[in-house]
């Protein structure tokens, strides 16, 4: 189900390395509010989304914007530095111990015919899909969404048409971080985590995006499905500890075989 959330990364193209850090923080904030104030983990997103949005907006304004015109590796390194800071801040604040959240809801499950599904998985799946639909609506139906897409396509042209590009970029970045924190919060219901949480998920979501082709919404969903299937099958035949290896193997195979992603391949097949 985490793949549903990885879609978001794909659409917004905010694959910045600091995302791994914010994902981890989303999980920690949820855990921290739960363990100190007994805040229901399901409600944590109500705090996390606005908070992370604000943080993201400020990061864009004061950090990312300053390196925007330079070579791409510069902003990559900046965000990598930010990730290191977040990660090790978490180590200092929360120690390296593995944490997990346990509430009655989280441990409950439902029987659907022969299979048993945990309630939190269903909840996360539904919440992920809702977030996705909300995002899609925002991007296609609202004035702001159109502005974001315009800026993504051509920053200069957008500026000429009177869009406040700086503000839009800040909002988009904030949105990306907020979604990431939201995802982290949801994932904390399913998995236990430590400050290094996020790295393998970053890899997976990247793998999904490459699978699906870098620019197509449907492709990303498709990639998520393909990877989930590959992992499910892989686990049957190899040690569970190698599960994370699967996404990487898939990634390499896809890159070698279909450099344009599966969506790109289908597109070229259709054309032929």
């Amino acid at each position, binding site marked *: 189900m985490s793949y549903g959330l990885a879609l978001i990364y794909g659409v917004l193209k905010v*694959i*910045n*390395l600091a995302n791994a850090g914010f994902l981890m923080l989303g999980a920690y904030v949820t855990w921290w509010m739960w363990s100190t104030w007994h805040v229901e983990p399901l409600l944590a997103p109500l705090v996390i989304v606005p908070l992370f949005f604000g943080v993201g907006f400020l990061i864009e304004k004061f*950090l990312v914007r*300053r*390196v925007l015109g*330079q*070579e*791409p*590796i*510069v902003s*990559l*390194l*900046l965000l*990598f*530095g*930010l*990730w*290191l*800071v*977040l*990660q*090790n*801040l978490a*180590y*200092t604040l929360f120690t*390296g111990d593995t944490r997990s959240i346990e509430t009655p809801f989280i441990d409950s499950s439902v029987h659907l015919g022969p299979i048993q599904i945990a309630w939190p998985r269903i909840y996360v799946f539904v919440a992920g899909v809702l977030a996705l639909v909300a995002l899609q609506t925002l991007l296609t139906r609202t004035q702001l969404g159109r502005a974001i897409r315009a800026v993504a396509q051509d920053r200069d042209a957008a500026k000429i048409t009177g869009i406040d590009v700086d503000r839009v970029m800040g909002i988009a970045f904030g949105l990306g971080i907020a979604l990431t924190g939201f995802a982290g919060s949801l994932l904390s219901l399913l998995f236990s985590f430590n400050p*290094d949480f996020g*790295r*393998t998920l*970053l*890899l997976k979501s*990247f*793998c999904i995006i*490459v699978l699906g082709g870098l620019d197509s919404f449907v492709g990303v969903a498709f990639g998520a499905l393909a990877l989930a299937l590959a992992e499910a099958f892989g686990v049957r035949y190899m*040690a569970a*500890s*190698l599960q*994370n*290896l699967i*996404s*990487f*193997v898939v*990634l*390499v195979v896809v*890159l*070698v075989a279909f*450099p344009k992603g599966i969506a790109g391949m289908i597109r070229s097949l259709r054309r032929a």
Partner: protein
Amino acid sequence: MRKPIVFAAILFAAIAFPFVAPGAEYAIDVVFLILLYGTMSAGWNIVGGFAGQVSFGHAAFLGIGAYTTGILAQHSVPLPVAFLVSGSLAAIFSLLIGIPCFRLTGPYFSIATIGIGEATRLIALNWNGLTGGASGITLSVTLPIVTQYFLALGLCAVVVLATIWIQRSRFGFALAAVRADPDAAETLGVNTTIAKTQALFVSAFILGCAGSIYALHYLFISPDSVFGFSTAIALVIMPIIGGLGTVTGPLIGAVIYTAIREQLEANFQNLDLLAFGLLLMAIVLYEPKGVLGAYQRFANRKKRVASTPAAAPR
């Protein structure tokens, strides 16, 4: 030119150092570590600095080198042979990586290399028959620290000379073009894929050799030590602190890195990486050319002041 003289002087001092400081095991050990880390840093810089392809997966090459030496030493293969095989295997492995990963550009390449680091670590962890799994490999050879020292010094000198050559050669220009604008480079006849693959090959060879020295020094290697993400991070941070794409920058970075780490790691866990994260952000924001760039700016200002004594204030 002044530079070759300075280089020769430093080299001479480094050669003489173990003889003037006999018995000062600790000092030799520290300088050895700086040389080793400097070598690794300069090796990374060939791909990350000159070609602008930031790799978070270079620990893989170090690890392959270290494990190759560890395994060969267990089978009593002569050390010089093990050393060269270590570098060569890492270099060959780089070709396997380069083919898929160089289809990606910019940040996407970088993220894929995180995957490589992770994948190699997992393989080392799970291939028990070859690598001993999580319990790692213990080497039973002992090499005097002075021998290790000269091995590291020799490798470091070779790497510095190689970087100087690259900087002035046709190859170096190709890498610079790849870094600045790969598409424009292609239209001018630069085969960017080949250039990047060659850079990665050289870089991987150096890291493989460094890994061999690493194994001979610590005599114990495990997936988390050589293949670990913190090793990969160190490889990225050192050249950036010192100055990306320069000859001396990565070495300066290694000195600073080793100094900060020795200070912080002993007292506060994880604070060192926090500090490096902040340092990295500060450098990217204020001085993208690293310490070396800051120094050059400082030196230029002094020179300008000195050479225009008559420049009266208006």
